[in-house]
């Protein structure tokens, strides 16, 4: 890989600009130095209904059986911000800029209080979605890309980013089978029209394009999410194993669990 500079300059760097896993993308959090922390950060990305939750659940079980300590974190799950975000979503008065900042606040809280402490303690952190979700959603809503990348400069570059890629037809089928389309997932705030189906299709197509455009920039490992749960899981485990095993061998017999 590239040899990145000691302090990454400014906003998020492109594919060849020196992203280094386990370090801040851009302007760091000065009071939280993270160099040399033993934990690993693995992000699972993908749009709504792509099957992230089940994959993370299975991956977690497998890792724990192998003796790794695992911590999960997920988008908008910070105890501080979750109620506020739900409230703001329900009232429909949320400007897109405020939306972006609410998400960033939630992320900052989880980064400071969950992710960084877990990395320090040597856990494997499984992140159900990461900043790419925020970048994609905000990108679709026309927020300035350079500003977004500078904003999220305090994010830590994951060691692995898996992108569960699916086409919009498959997605529509799954979402309708599972629970139906909701207002935000359909991008109804963008006012593409009153028809939730058309809006869902348009919005998710745009999101998929945003994700694809980030694949190279952020070193996504793309997995075909149209396959069965088991096949996707096998692929995930294979790649995670290749990454984790050379760097750290947990003393399995010593772990009683």
């Amino acid at each position, binding site marked *: 890989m590239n040899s990145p500079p000691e302090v990454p300059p*400014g*906003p998020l760097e492109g594919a060849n600009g020196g992203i280094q896993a386990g370090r801040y993308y*851009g*302007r*760091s*959090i*000065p*009071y*939280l130095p993270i160099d040399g922390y033993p934990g690993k950060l693995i992000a699972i990305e993908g749009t709504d209904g792509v099957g992230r939750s089940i994959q993370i659940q299975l991956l977690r079980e497998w890792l724990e059986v192998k003796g790794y300590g695992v911590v999960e974190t997920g988008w908008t799950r910070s105890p*501080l911000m979750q109620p506020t975000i739900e409230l703001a979503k329900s009232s429909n008065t949320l*400007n897109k*800029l*405020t939306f972006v*900042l*609410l998400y*960033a*606040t939630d992320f*900052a*809280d989880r*980064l*400071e*209080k969950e992710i960084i402490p877990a990395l320090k303690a040597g856990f494997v952190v499984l992140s159900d979605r990461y900043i790419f979700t925020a970048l994609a959603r905000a990108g679709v809503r026309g927020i300035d890309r350079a*500003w977004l990348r*500078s*904003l999220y*400069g*305090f994010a830590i570059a994951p060691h692995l980013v898996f992108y569960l890629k699916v086409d919009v037809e498959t997605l529509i089928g799954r979402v309708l089978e599972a629970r139906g389309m909701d207002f935000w997932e359909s991008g109804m705030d963008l006012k593409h029209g009153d028809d939730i189906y058309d809006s869902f299709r348009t919005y998710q197509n745009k999101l998929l394009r945003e994700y694809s455009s980030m694949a190279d920039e952020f070193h996504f490992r793309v997995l075909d999410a149209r396959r069965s749960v088991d096949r996707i899981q096998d692929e995930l485990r294979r790649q995670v194993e290749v990454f984790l095993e050379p760097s750290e061998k947990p003393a399995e017999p010593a772990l009683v669990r």
Partner: protein
Amino acid sequence: MTFSLLHATDFADRLLYKIIPPLKAGMIVLADRYAYTAFTRDVTRGVDRQWVRELYSFAVRPDLTLYFRVPIDVSLDRLMARRVKIKFYEAGMDLGWSANPVESFRLFQGKVLDEYDRIVEEFGLDVVNAVSSITEQQRLVRDLIARHVLTTHAETVNEQSA
């Protein structure tokens, strides 16, 4: 970091609902504190100086910014006279620099004032000596604003007649 973003979120909401619409309508908006407060307070809490400036780059740059400057002792005296208890975050107690609220306030706000001095230069703020009497300050403030509003108003009129 979270503290900083929480305030930025609140600011964005107020900017878009309370500040930009009246500006578009040609009104004068008086903001009691602005993004500069975040620059000083967040940097004192350890946030990257450049990052927070970029974060707030969506903010409208004020036509005029007045900075009321007081030495730390004067502000402490005033606060103590008005209410017994100093607020937790105002004193920077979250930073754990001192268990004594007054001492913590002195340390924290002292650093905040240093940041303000930096910002006065960087963004060209007009400094009002806030130790002087209210009447004196108000006269200076009126003077500064009057000059500014008159000029701008004249320009607007010219534009319209042109």
